[in-house]
């Protein structure tokens, strides 16, 4: 029972990590507002089921739609800005959503949160979701989508010059990310049966980015493995309380010093051994 609960939590958080992967891992955009999209998804699902008596499946779809709308509202005006401003604005957005959740108490329960959400997301649904999302992202990771993302991360100017609409591609990535986050949030609500505004603050968003960095930015499998390891470890060693975060902190520092490409990063340093035929002629 305990282990199945650990697995459920781990997989839900892995969905969050997967949602951030195209945005922070591939495109190099750091959003501290991802927690807000998770909260939007969770609250939409909870309110839809409890107050409007919608079936959980419909609530989940509604959560994704609201997540996408949120992504458009935040993404369209901010993604033309420089990355550092984007980070600050998403941070502001995260705090704004939290304040709204506290303030709209008759709808959201304020600081008390929402309790008594029906249990609709068990291990099978969560596991299938995580696997399907993993494969979807693995698929887009094999085509132009990935190439455009990495190009934008490496050099925006050159990316424009080779004919890619940088702004539009960033919007696509951000909306994809927001919708998966919202979906994960809805699963979270239906699994934990209780949500409150402080569960998804900017620190949670930052943690998702850190996991991507430690796992290896370019490697989807590496990121997924890292998130599974981190959250399983986190749940199993819950008794260690503060020491958990201390160990994570040390791990982050060690990894960034000795393996800057991430624990499971894919960057290889291959020096070609074959001579260049063009120079040999001379």
């Amino acid at each position, binding site marked *: 029972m305990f282990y199945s609960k650990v697995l459920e939590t781990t997989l839900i958080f892995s969905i969050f990590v997967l949602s951030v992967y195209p945005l922070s891992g591939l495109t190099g955009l750091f959003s501290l507002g991802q927690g807000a999209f998770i909260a939007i998804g969770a609250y939409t699902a909870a309110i839809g089921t409890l107050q409007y008596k919608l079936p959980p499946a419909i609530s989940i779809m509604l959560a994704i739609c609201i997540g996408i709308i949120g992504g458009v509202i935040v993404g369209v005006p901010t993604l033309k800005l420089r990355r550092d401003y984007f980070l600050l604005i998403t941070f502001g957005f995260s705090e704004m959503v939290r304040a709204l959740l506290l303030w709209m108490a008759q709808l959201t329960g304020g600081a008390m949160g929402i309790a008594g959400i029906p249990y609709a997301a068990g291990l099978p649904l969560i596991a299938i979701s995580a696997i399907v999302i993993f494969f979807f992202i693995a698929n887009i990771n094999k085509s132009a989508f990935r190439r455009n993302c990495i190009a934008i991360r490496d050099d925006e100017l050159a990316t424009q010059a080779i004919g*890619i609409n940088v702004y539009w591609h960033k919007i696509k990535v951000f909306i994809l990310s927001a919708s998966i986050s919202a979906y994960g949030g809805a699963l979270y609500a239906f699994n934990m049966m209780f949500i409150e505004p402080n569960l998804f603050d900017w620190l949670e968003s930052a943690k998702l980015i850190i996991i991507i960095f430690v796992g290896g930015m370019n490697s989807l499998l590496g990121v997924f493995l890292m998130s599974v390891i981190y959250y399983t470890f986190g749940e199993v060693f819950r008794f260690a309380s503060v020491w958990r975060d201390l160990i994570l902190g040390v791990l982050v520092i060690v990894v960034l010093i000795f393996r800057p490409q991430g624990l499971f990063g894919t960057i290889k340093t291959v020096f070609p051994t074959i001579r260049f035929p063009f120079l040999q002629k001379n």
Partner: protein
Amino acid sequence: MELLKLESVSKSFGGVQAVHEVSLIQNKDEITAIIGPNGAGKTTVFNLISGIYQQDAGKIFFRGMDISELAPHRRCALGISRTFQNIRLFNNMTVLENVKVSYANHLTYNFFDEVFRTGKVKKEERELEERAFEYLKLLYLDVYASSYPGNLPYGIQRRLELARALLPEPNLLLLDEPAAGLNPSEIRELMEMILNLQHTKKLSIIIVEHHMELVMNICSRIHVLDFGKKIAEGTPKEVIENEKVLQAYLGDLGEVC
């Protein structure tokens, strides 16, 4: 036939007039050069043509169409490709991916095809891979296909940038100092390659370059800029004999004597 036309284009940065009322015409199937002393505004002209900067005044026409207001990616889609003076490759991608990425405009699959990895994606990606290899072979880069550009010698990085610019099949190619940092034998190879490309791909090429041997040997016409103004235009021979050009490069000879 006229391919590109600049009509008294100007651009200033703060108080510095980087480009002042420059007009030029580029025909189909010709190689021309823009030369001038350092800071003459050559690269700025390239940035204006490729849309990285927006001009303050004047108009730019490409294939008879006014492109003055278009974003860089739209201009690339119309057929303007460029390389950069300071190499700008994508260091987190392999050489092969660096080339593939520039074909984005020609791919017809959409996001949902990508998510479900439909047959369309597989087919187009396979074709793209073949195409990319073709271009890598053309520029003798195929042996490096799976290495990362950051680890490669300078000359090879330059050629990779060229391959990336060529893959989308441009009509107009802008080369910003392609010979910078190359040794004499590499420069000779580069000249052959440019002529060869121009011939086989029916390209129109504009080169910004300081290396005079290259410019004099392969360009049919030369535009000379000095302090953002165009001071001369003509065949290499005419330009060499032009007094204003000599003055721009060597200073006022009267003062020296």
